[in-house]
């Protein structure tokens, strides 16, 4: 009985081939004459073999996407999140940011377009008015100083 206890203690190591040769010989000698310990060893071996032959499990396909949504947002820097988004798809927040960004970009384009349009129009109007003024003054000079005067002409235009 005492012998059984000391052998039982060694069965696990015996199963793994981790006993010293003398210990192993002692265990094997006992196993030959003790059906109780032999049955214990057999059950242990069957159990361990079943454990080792169990199918390996895997996480679901959406594992990383789900995990990414759960990670605290401050940790990765902005550009890293966007790089990940390009590889794995956008998060809700990034989708919203994208929509805002697109809306803002369209707004800016419209604004620049209309601004240059107004500027062009204003410029055209100013140039026309200026040309009209020039023509008017020039005709006046011609009336009052028919022989021409360089200083009067330049001074008159910048008046």
């Amino acid at each position, binding site marked *: 009985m005492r012998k059984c206890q000391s052998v039982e203690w060694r069965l696990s190591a015996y199963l793994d081939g981790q006993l010293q040769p003398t210990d192993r010989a002692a265990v094997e000698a006992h196993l030959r*004459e003790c059906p109780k310990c032999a049955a214990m060893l057999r059950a242990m071996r069957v159990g361990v073999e*079943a454990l080792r032959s169990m*199918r390996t499990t895997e996480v679901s396909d959406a594992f990383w996407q789900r995990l990414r949504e759960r990670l605290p947002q401050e940790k*990765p820097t902005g550009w*890293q999140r966007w790089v990940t988004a390009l590889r794995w798809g956008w998060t809700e927040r990034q989708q919203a940011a994208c929509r805002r960004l697109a809306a803002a970009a369209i707004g800016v384009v419209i604004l620049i377009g209309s601004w240059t349009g107004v500027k062009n129009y204003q410029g055209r109007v100013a140039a026309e008015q200026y040309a009209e003024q020039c023509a008017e003054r020039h005709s006046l000079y011609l009336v009052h100083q028919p022989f021409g005067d360089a200083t009067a002409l330049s001074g008159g235009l910048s008046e």
Partner: protein
Amino acid sequence: MIPPVPQKVLVMDDAEQALLARCRANDLLAFEEVVHRYKNKVHNYIARMVNDADDAEDLTQDVFVKAFISLGSFRGEASLQTWLYRIATNLCIDRARRRKRQRWDTMSLDEPVRDDEDDEIGRDVPDVEADPYRHLERKELRQQVRRALGRLSEKLRAVIVLYDVQGLSYEEIAQVLGCPLGTVKSRLFNARAELAKHLKPYLYGEGAEPHA
């Protein structure tokens, strides 16, 4: 004799150090790489610890969320794998405690084990295809083993799953659990002995132990 389980490395190699450094620098791509490397190992461990596919997936998520948050406090004294197994073990033990508080009785010990592996075929049983009856036996045996696993305490179950399912060495298990090598060995023996005791009636029939 059962061939020895392949032994795993204990310390971080240079590549893992570099990966960890990138993770600490808030490189999400590096963390993704860590997840990619270890997600299935962690899941497999947890699946054998809790025996519930949905819970295993959620708990595996929790492991990586926790790892991500505590990257700063992990000093690299163990390998990433060891560290992740440690987090997983703690979460499984927490879950068991919560469950025990929720149901006072020991119902969970006797309720039927959910079998999510109906189509499972043993990896190393060549005669399974040839003999359908043996296949059935194997399947039933695995169910018995899972049931027996469920009856072990979390501490014993962790050791036997880490050693016989996940293939860790005694040394790495000692690191995972933060206990001496001798404790790992004695827990492994106790776990295997309990497993054997649960399987004996199934193998030899109720109360029909062989006599000389």
